[in-house]
C-alpha cells in the first residue's frame, strides 16, 4: 500500500456480510476494490464506495468519518454509484464485468462482482513489451468491443478504458472492468468530487467539453489502449496535445511491424476532433474484423519482403 493512499482498506479477514475480505486489489479516488470469498469460498471482487475527499477511514477504523458538510455530496456520489450498479445489473455480457450482489454496510454501499482469474492487459503489455502480435490485438479488441457495444446500447459510457481496466481471462477473453459512470455523473459539479482522467487515455472532450461526451470518447481510449499495445508507451495526453500536438502517429512509428490498416485505425481513433473518429463501436469493430484475414497475410508478406530486402542489402 502506498503511503499516499488516503483511505485505509478493510483489514484482511474482515467479515463483510457473507464475504470474508482477503486483500485490497486496487484503490481509486472513489472506491476501494477487494478480493473476498463468499461462504462457498468462491472468490469475488467487492467494490466499496469511499470517495476519499468526502469519507475518511483511518487506521484501525471500520466506519468512515463523514463530515456533516460533506453528507450531501457523499449522498450524491452514492446515487451515482447506484447508477453504475443499476446499469451493470442490466448488462449480462461475457466481456463486461458481472455484478452479483449489492448491499449496504458500514455507512456506505458495496458492489460485489464476479472475480476473474487472469491478468490485466496492463500486466500483459508490461510482460510482452514490444512483442505483442497484431493477431492478439485484433482478437482481444474485437471481443472487447462486443462488450463495449453492449455498454453503449444501455446508454452508458465507460469513460476510463485503459489497459489496467481490461482483464484478460485465462482463456484470453477480455473483460471490461471499473465503470466510470459515477465519475461522469459527477463531472462539472463543484462538489469536491473531482472527475478523474487517466492522461493519455482520456479524450480531449473529457477535460474540455463534458457536454460532448459520447461513444467516440470511449473510442479514443480504445485507440490509446491499442497504441499502448504496440510499443508499451502511452500516447501524449490529450490536454497537452491540444497545446502542442506531439502525437507520433502509429502509422509512422510502427510502419512495417504491423499492418497499415491496423495502424491507421489506431490513428483514426486518436483524432483530437471527435467528429473525425469512428463514431460508433460498430464502425470500429467492422474495420478491426473484416479484413483480418487479408491483413494477416499482408503482414506476413511484409515481413518476408523486409527480410528479403535485408538479405539483398547484404
Amino acid at each position, binding site marked *: 500500500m502506498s503511503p499516499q493512499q488516503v483511505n485505509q482498506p478493510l483489514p484482511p479477514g474482515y467479515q463483510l456480510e457473507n464475504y470474508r475480505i482477503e486483500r485490497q486489489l486496487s484503490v481509486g479516488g472513489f472506491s476501494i476494490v477487494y478480493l473476498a470469498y463468499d461462504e462457498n469460498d468462491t472468490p469475488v471482487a467487492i467494490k466499496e464506495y469511499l470517495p476519499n475527499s468526502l469519507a475518511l477511514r483511518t487506521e484501525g477504523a471500520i466506519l468512515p*468519518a463523514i463530515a*456533516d*458538510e460533506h*453528507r*450531501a455530496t457523499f449522498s450524491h456520489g452514492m446515487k451515482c454509484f447506484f447508477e453504475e450498479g*443499476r446499469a451493470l*445489473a442490466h448488462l*449480462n455480457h461475457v466481456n463486461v464485468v458481472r*455484478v452479483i450482489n*449489492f448491499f449496504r454496510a458500514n455507512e456506505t454501499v458495496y458492489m460485489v462482482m464476479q472475480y476473474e482469474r487472469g491478468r490485466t492487459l496492463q500486466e500483459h503489455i508490461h510482460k510482452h513489451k514490444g512483442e505483442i502480435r497484431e493477431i492478439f490485438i485484433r482478437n482481444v479488441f474485437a471481443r472487447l468491443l462486443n462488450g463495449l457495444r453492449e455498454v453503449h446500447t444501455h446508454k452508458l459510457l465507460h469513460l476510463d478504458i485503459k489497459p489496467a481496466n481490461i482483464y484478460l481471462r485465462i482463456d484470453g477473453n477480455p473483460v471490461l472492468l471499473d465503470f466510470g459512470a459515477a465519475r461522469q455523473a459527477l463531472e462539472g459539479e463543484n462538489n469536491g468530487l473531482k472527475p478523474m482522467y487517466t492522461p493519455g487515455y482520456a479524450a480531449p472532450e473529457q477535460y474540455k467539453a463534458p457536454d460532448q461526451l459520447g461513444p467516440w470518447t470511449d473510442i479514443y481510449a480504445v485507440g490509446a489502449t491499442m497504441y499502448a499495445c504496440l510499443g508499451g508507451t502511452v500516447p501524449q495526453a490529450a490536454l497537452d496535445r491540444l497545446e502542442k500536438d506531439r502525437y507520433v502517429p502509429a502509422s509512422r512509428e510502427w510502419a512495417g511491424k504491423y499492418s497499415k490498416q491496423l495502424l491507421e485505425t489506431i490513428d483514426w481513433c486518436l483524432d483530437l476532433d471527435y467528429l473525425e473518429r469512428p463514431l460508433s463501436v460498430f464502425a470500429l469493430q467492422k474495420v478491426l474484423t473484416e479484413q483480418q484475414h487479408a491483413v494477416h497475410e499482408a503482414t506476413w508478406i511484409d515481413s518476408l519482403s523486409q527480410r528479403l530486402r535485408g538479405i539483398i542489402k547484404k
Partner: protein
Amino acid sequence: MKFAIYQESRVGKRHNNQDRLAHCYSRDALLMVVADGMGGHLHGEVAAQIAVQLLTETFQREARPRLNDPFMFLAQGLTNAHRAVQDYAIANHLIEAESPRTTCVACVVQDNVAYWVHAGDSRLYVLRDGRVLTRTRDHSTVQAMIDDGQITAAEAQHHPLRNRIYSCLGGLQSPQFDFSRKTPLLAGDVLLLCSDGVWGPLDDLRFVTALHDADVIQAVPPLLDEAERAGGSNADNLSLIALCWGENYGEEAAPGIETGTMPFDAHSTQMLEFERSHAPQPELTDADIERAIDEIRNAIRKNSP
C-alpha cells in the same frame, strides 16, 4: 498596504462548526476576526456569527478608507456584539444555561500598526524573526492558574478546567476586553488569529517553525492538518487567519494583496457564510437507499444466467 492572508475553518471531529472567522479590508485598513461560539444546540454558532458579522459590517461602514480610531472601533464593535448576542438570547427566550456565547479576537491593521482586542481563549500571535513577539493571554481559568504559578503550561493542556473561560460575548456577565498596545509591524511579521482547536493541540513553537519565512497560503493547511490530527478523535473546530505583512515578503512566495489601487470606498470581505457549516440535508434517506439497492438486486436476479 501589502500583505498575504489566508483563512480557513474546519469542523474537526465535531458535528458542527461553531467557529466563525472573517477578514475584510479597504485601501488603508484591514480587519480580522475569529469567534468561537459556545452554548447549547446551534446557539453557539449564532453568537459567533453575530459577532463576526457585526464587526465586519461596522468596518465596512466606517473604514472609508481609514478608521478614525482603531481602538475605539474595536471597543464599540465588541460591546455592540456582546449586546446583540444578549438580545438574541432574550428574543429567543433562552435560559442562562443554554445562552449563546462566543469568544472573540479581532485585529485592525492601519498605517503599519496593529491594534487588537480579545475576550475568551481565542488567540492572536505576533511572530517576528522566528519567535513569538507577543500573544494574547487567555481569559481562562487555567491561564490564571499558570500566572499564579499553580500549574505549568504543560499541565494546563490536560487540565480538567482548560475549557473554562471567564470572559466572552453574550451571557449575563459583562465581558472583560484586553486591548493590545499599538504594535508597529515590520515586513515579514506574521499575525495569527486562531481558535483553541488550533492552538490547543499544538505547541506555540510549532507556529514559529511552520510559519517562519514561509508562504502562509502554503504553510497553513498542513499546520491545520497537524492540529486536527493531534486533536484526535474528538478534535475541536479549528479556525485560523494568518497574515504575512510587508513588502519584502519573498516575491514568489505568496500572491500578495496590494490595496493601493483600490477605490476609497471599496471593501473586500471574506467571511465563512452562515449557511455553509449548517449540515445540508442529505439527498438520500435510508428508505431511498434501500429502494435503490432492492431495485439493483432485482435486476441482478432477473439477469442471472
